[in-house]
């Protein structure tokens, strides 16, 4: 009888514990503030977006988005821990709560936004699928790719978009899918595939990593829309708003001409009411977001505005040398547009 009792007791305790740990809700922001850092999912190595340097520091526009969120939440951009994920791991990592935000060149689509318990917070980079081929093949346009063998990263929208493109044009192709972008690049170099397909930004990044980048050329066609942006779990609007407005703050800062160099100066002495609201000199807009008053100042001071981040990671003076193109601000010929802070 005693044994029975103790068995029951253990069982009840275990069940209660189980319920407690499973049903533990709390908001993402509370949990982050408790643990003192943001766990951010980035790629397994994509120059310009998120790639580790020789000291192990992760650089890139995707990594900087996470740093900006940390600057907004903690006032300290270094309070981020990165998880390097391949395309197949990324959603499960976010769904299971292993990471707080996924900032990993991930394409915004309806099924990912609605059917996976995830929600996209915005667009960091407007991209599209293109083709990288060896110059030796003498191919000038994607329409000449009938019968080609194509290396693709597994579990990406690229896999679907390439299939659509070739099906639409009535062309044949053989897809070879790899888990990591490095494996696909290696296979292109070895001649396993004729073509490497990915988002165009990634193609430039991959090309810069090849043994002889000049032997390869990116074909002119862009066959799909690939808006890349940070993703959070569905059902926590507060956290989603923080990530979303961090991105908007970076865009608004660029638009207002606030840079990491002049931000402190501007915060103190600006005459422009827009800038005043943005930098917390006027009003309590940070409070609405459950953030500190000077959240934008911290973002811009420690990480930079959108233009600075873009130029640092992808722009003219980097090996990638990507043009702003669609990613220029709306008033500058691009489509990057952020709602105002007020």
């Amino acid at each position, binding site marked *: 009888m005693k044994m029975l009792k103790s068995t029951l007791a253990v069982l009840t305790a275990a069940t209660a514990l189980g319920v407690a740990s499973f049903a533990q809700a709390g908001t993402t922001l509370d949990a982050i503030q408790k643990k003192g850092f943001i766990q951010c999912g980035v790629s397994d190595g994509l120059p310009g977006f998120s790639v580790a340097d020789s000291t192990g520091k992760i650089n890139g526009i995707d990594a900087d988005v996470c740093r900006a969120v940390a600057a907004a939440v903690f006032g300290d951009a270094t309070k981020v821990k990165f998880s390097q994920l391949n*395309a197949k791991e990324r*959603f499960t990592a976010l769904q299971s709560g292993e990471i707080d935000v996924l900032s990993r060149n991930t394409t915004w689509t309806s099924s990912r936004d609605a*059917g*996976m318990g995830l929600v996209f917070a915005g667009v960091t980079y407007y991209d599209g699928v293109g083709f990288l081929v060896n110059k030796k093949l003498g191919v000038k346009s994607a329409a000449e790719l009938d019968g080609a*063998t194509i290396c693709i990263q*597994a579990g990406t929208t690229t896999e679907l978009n390439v*299939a659509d493109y070739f099906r639409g044009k009535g062309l044949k192709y053989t897809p*070879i899918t790899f888990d990591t972008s490095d494996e696909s690049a290696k296979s292109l170099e070895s001649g396993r595939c004729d073509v490497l397909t990915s988002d165009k930004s990634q193609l430039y990044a991959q090309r810069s990593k090849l043994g002889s980048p000049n032997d390869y050329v990116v074909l002119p066609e862009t066959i799909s829309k690939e808006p890349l942006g940070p993703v959070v779990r569905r059902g926590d609007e507060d956290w989603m708003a923080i990530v979303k407005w961090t991105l908007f703050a970076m865009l608004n800062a660029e638009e207002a001409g606030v840079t990491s160099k002049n931000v402190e100066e501007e915060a103190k002495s600006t005459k422009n009411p827009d800038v005043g609201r943005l930098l917390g000199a006027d009003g309590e807009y940070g409070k609405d977001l459950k953030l500190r008053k000077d959240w934008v100042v911290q973002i811009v001071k420690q990480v930079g505005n959108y233009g600075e981040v873009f130029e640092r990671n992808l722009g003219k003076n980097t090996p990638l040398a990507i043009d702003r193109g669609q990613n220029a601000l709306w008033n500058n010929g691009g489509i990057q547009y952020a709602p105002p802070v007020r």
Partner: protein
Amino acid sequence: MQNQIGAPKGFSLTDPRVRAWLFQIITVLAVISLGWFLFDNTQTNLQHRGITSGFGFLQNSAGFGIAQHLIDYKESDSYARVFLIGLLNTLLVTFIGIILATLLGFVLGVARLSKNWMINKLATVYIEIFRNIPPLLQILFWYFAVFLTLPGPRAAHSILGYFFVSSRGLNMPAAIPAEGVWPFVIAVVIAIVAIVVMSKWATKRFEETGVPFHKFWAGLALIVVIPALSMLIFGVPVHWELAQLQGFNFVGGWVMIPELLALTLALTVYTAAFIAEIVRSGIKSVSHGQTEAAHSLGLRNGPTLRKVIIPQAMRVIIPPLTSQYLNLAKNSSLAAGIGYPEMVSLFAGTVLNQTGQAIEVIAITMSVYLAISISISLLMNWYNKRIALIER
């Protein structure tokens, strides 16, 4: 008869039998409720987080291409068909791998026992090398260091003008069924039946009269002559379609993609090393007295090995051999590293990612491996029972 003296009748917790039952019931209930709790909790959480669940996604169209499919496939086909293709690709590797690894393993195992110093040492070196390197590394080695370093299709090595080896794999002529295909198939079936009948008759005669019969040569004659006759009368069974270089790649013919070649080769070479050791220990387990007894009956070395040693060794070999087969089937999932479209890389990889339904996809994948493993086990257990020592 079980009633102890003084044991109270009826329900009492002091009765050990009642207690035994009670605890069993409690345990079962606890396991069931834990299972139910996990299931219910998952369901609730999935719903709470707005993650689609259920198996409806299997009907949706997949929308991506697949490098190797043994059955027809186009991008508009459903995820269910993608599942089938992944399953078939896994089974293909498992099947080829098991056959080749068994053959190679037996040869190596016997070689390891050879009295010839050279053969013996070569087999030992082989086994020690390949048994001790992790299979994933071997797969990557064969793929990246061997097959992908071959020249591109435009500079492919040609073997007699029929086979082409390049970084795109092994291209070979395809057999296209011709007018004589059905008569040919029927002729082969007839030949096989004839061989079985002949073999039974020969065994029976041997047991009754002791006169041996050349079963092998007679069988060979039957399997060659009957289909050849069919070809003479009804025409050739197949036409050969040659692979030809056109544009980027070879068109026509059949191709074994380098992913398949690398995976099969790596798994064969790896598993064969283990099988060799199993075969060696099996043969060693048969006491030397058996060989001496066979020799004293006048059997030569060959028949002694075939008729006396191997049948007894098989009883020791089969159970561990089964687990090697299971290992091979499970190791085929390492193909994800080189992009061979099997269950894990195709279904638990691409499909999982495109649909986001991790729990369903992983559950299906796990049950597939479970089913494959159990099937192999059942088959091998059946074979083991058949050859087991019948004790009299």
